[in-house]
């Protein structure tokens, strides 16, 4: 028992140092791309760089550090991590427009290959708002209503997979709702608004469900705190997405007065 814990600790330390290098690397690559593309084209907006750095820090702090450590026994801390990884980090990263930056930085041939990839059918399916919502909200339903939440704390691999899914699904969902990057497969504002409302409802219902039905291994009190946090903080973040979506509608439907005269 004791030695087992020791080995896990050693593995954990190695794992943590890898996990610490990865976010740092992603930030460095982004900044390098900003420098290169700003030399050739218009200056890259500073807020996007900040948004990227902050987004990566949010995502990383859900996997390593004090919040991640407490998340093993404290459901509220788990929920804070979930909000950082699945909701706050995705918005910040989408706002940083990484694909636009990549297309500006890469040489013509690689950029063409990237845009071909974006237009491909697998991404057409994944970037569909209904599919992205199902992956995002559906994944959460499975995590908290089946035994998966309890299993996740016993296996490091499973935990990593769940974190990966929450992050990727969160990013896909956000990117399918607000178009900051070139999106070859576009949907109307009305369609995205309807899908978004249904997914937000799914999120609300799940947080209330957690409030009443604690996931496996979670006490009633912790489930209530975590459920409330998921409900209210989730709302605050979702309202941000609604505001961005509506603002994009507002800009796109601007009346063209100069043409009318």
């Amino acid at each position: 028992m004791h030695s087992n814990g020791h080995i896990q600790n050693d593995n954990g330390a190695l794992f943590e140092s890898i996990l610490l290098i990865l976010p740092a690397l992603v930030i460095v690559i982004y900044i390098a791309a900003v420098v290169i593309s700003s030399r050739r084209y218009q200056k890259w907006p500073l807020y996007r760089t900040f948004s990227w750095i902050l987004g990566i820090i949010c995502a990383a702090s859900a996997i390593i550090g004090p919040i991640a450590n407490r998340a093993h026994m404290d459901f509220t801390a788990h929920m804070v991590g979930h909000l950082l990884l699945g909701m706050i980090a995705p918005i910040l990263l989408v706002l940083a427009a990484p694909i636009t930056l990549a297309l500006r930085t890469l040489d013509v041939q690689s950029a063409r290959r990237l845009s071909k990839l974006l237009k491909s059918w697998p991404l057409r399916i994944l970037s569909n708002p209904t599919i992205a919502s199902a992956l995002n909200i559906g994944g959460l339903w499975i995590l908290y209503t089946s035994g998966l939440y309890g299993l996740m704390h016993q296996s490091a691999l499973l935990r990593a997979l769940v974190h990966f899914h929450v992050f990727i699904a969160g990013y896909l969902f956000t990117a399918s709702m607000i178009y900051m990057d070139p999106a070859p497969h576009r949907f109307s504002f009305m369609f995205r608004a309807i899908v978004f409302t249904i997914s937000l409802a799914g999120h609300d219902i799940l947080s209330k469900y957690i409030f009443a039905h604690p996931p496996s291994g979670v006490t009633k009190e912790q489930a209530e705190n975590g459920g409330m946090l998921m409900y209210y903080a989730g709302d605050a973040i979702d309202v941000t997405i609604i505001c961005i979506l509506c603002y994009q509608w507002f800009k796109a439907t601007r009346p063209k007065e100069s043409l009318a005269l």
Partner: protein
Amino acid sequence: MDFKPRNQKDQSLSEIRYTYSARNLWSGFLFGIGLVAFIDEAIFHQLLHWHHFYDKSTSNIGLVSDGLFHALSWFATVGSLFMFADLRRRKGLWLKRWTGGVLLGAGSFQLYDGTIQHKLMRLHQIRYNVDILPYDLIWNIAATGMILIGISLIIRTRRSLLKMKAEGRYAQ
């Protein structure tokens, strides 16, 4: 829509109002729903703690309808205000018709909440451990009052719309 202005200069205020009368009504209606939902949640749930989002083991339908309504009210609030801004920049805002929409939306949601959610589905009550009748009466009578005033404003603006339309035909 048979009242298309020939060009921008021809567009008098009433014509713009005519064009955007439906958008005025919708923007107001959605804002009204969002407003009451917000007041209910911020004041009664969170500040006064009169009732909470989970009062008793509710039916699954109650949970689902509550979640959907909450999501809809968030989107309605933000979306309707952007529609309001859009009407202003198009100079098509018709405050009287918009207000009619707000009162109709607010009253309808409040009456739905007070009758279906409170009484029929018994999701929660306004307050507990007190005589609830005066609270219910105030909540539902206020809702009915808002609906009636809202409808009368909508009918009145519709009348002037129809009048405008008739005059417009004569002028052409």
